[in-house]
């Protein structure tokens, strides 16, 4: 299924950080949704700021508009405030994108575990993310670092 772009994506001013405060709020909210949706669709978990500038999300070649590095940073900061992003380095050049927050993953996994009646069993992380049993579950294929984070606050043992 191909990714469906929101109407803003083809609206040239969407790629200019808006001077009006209220409009900017709406713009950033839309950017956050778009970035997360795009990452979810392509199962992306990390983003590099430099590389992102060339990614189709932030660079719409068809209308010849792209978000500046500064604007991308602003969007990322918004995502961080919402709990959907974590910086991997002090220079803020790479980040982890959590289009689902760790707690949400934890809940999903726990629901699956109780569904299959496996509470109180032992799983390896590998079994959970790559095992045959979990194929078809949303968390199948989930990267290890996020699995680990999702266990925080969820009582598995």
């Amino acid at each position: 299924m191909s990714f469906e772009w929101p109407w803003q994506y083809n609206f040239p001013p969407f790629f200019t950080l808006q001077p009006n405060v209220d409009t900017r709020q709406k713009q950033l909210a839309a950017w956050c949704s778009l970035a997360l949706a795009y990452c979810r669709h392509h199962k992306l978990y990390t983003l590099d700021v430099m590389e992102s500038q060339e990614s189709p999300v932030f660079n719409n070649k068809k209308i010849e508009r792209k978000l500046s590095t500064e604007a991308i940073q602003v969007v990322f900061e918004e995502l961080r405030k919402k709990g959907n992003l974590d910086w991997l380095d002090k220079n803020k050049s790479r980040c982890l994108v959590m289009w689902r927050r760790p707690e949400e993953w934890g809940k999903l996994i726990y629901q699956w575990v109780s569904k299959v009646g496996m509470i109180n069993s032992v799983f390896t992380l590998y079994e959970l993310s790559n095992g045959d049993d979990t194929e078809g579950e949303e968390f199948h294929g989930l990267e290890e670092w996020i699995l680990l984070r999702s266990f925080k606050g969820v009582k598995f043992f």
Partner: protein
Amino acid sequence: MHRRGVGAGAIAKKKLAEVCYIMSKQIETFKSHLEEFASKHKQEIRKNSQFRVQFQEMCATIGVDPLASGKGFWSEMLGVGDFYYELGVQIIEVCLALKHRNGGLITLDELHQRVLKGRGKYAQDVSQDDLVRAIKKLKAMGNGFGMIPVGGSYLVQSVPAELNMDHTVVLQLAEKKGYVTVSEIKEHLKWERERSCHVLDHLLKEGLAWLDSQAAGEPQYWLPALFSEISSRDVTPDEANQMTP
């Protein structure tokens, strides 16, 4: 005492009274014919927009406004008042739902499309004339509604943003391409740069325009209300969550 011209004055008065009496009788007759017509064609009026236009025009010639008030013969007998009242409510709903996108400005075309969509396949036929009348009613009730003529149709304004003649004229200029620049304003309207910028800043401030600083040459000011791609897109659940209360 000298009462000069008494005879002439009294006769003139009497004549006038007679004429008025005859006229009022004629109006009474005409009105009752109209009532009869209305009751016979009540269904037609509700279902057929062409019919409604003609009926409205007929009423206008005798100085009757079927939408004048909620109560009263016309609206009760015909349900015409109900029809436009319900339409007004629908219009408000559509405008509210899209306000976060277009700042409270929408083309009559898009409004029409969405109202029809909202009424479903089997709903009564609603014309743009119907919308214009309903909006005029809303405006008269002080709901912050207004209509700006652009490019042969209208932009419907649903928030009481302060728009004066200068703003209106720039909106009309922007209608062709969906955006406008300072140069275009200076060229077509012969304004000074400062006046042009002032108007554009105001449109930005009211949330009616967005700035595009990556356009070749000079910044472009785009109006979401005129962006044609918008009209086909529904409000997604994501968007709905983003709407400021």
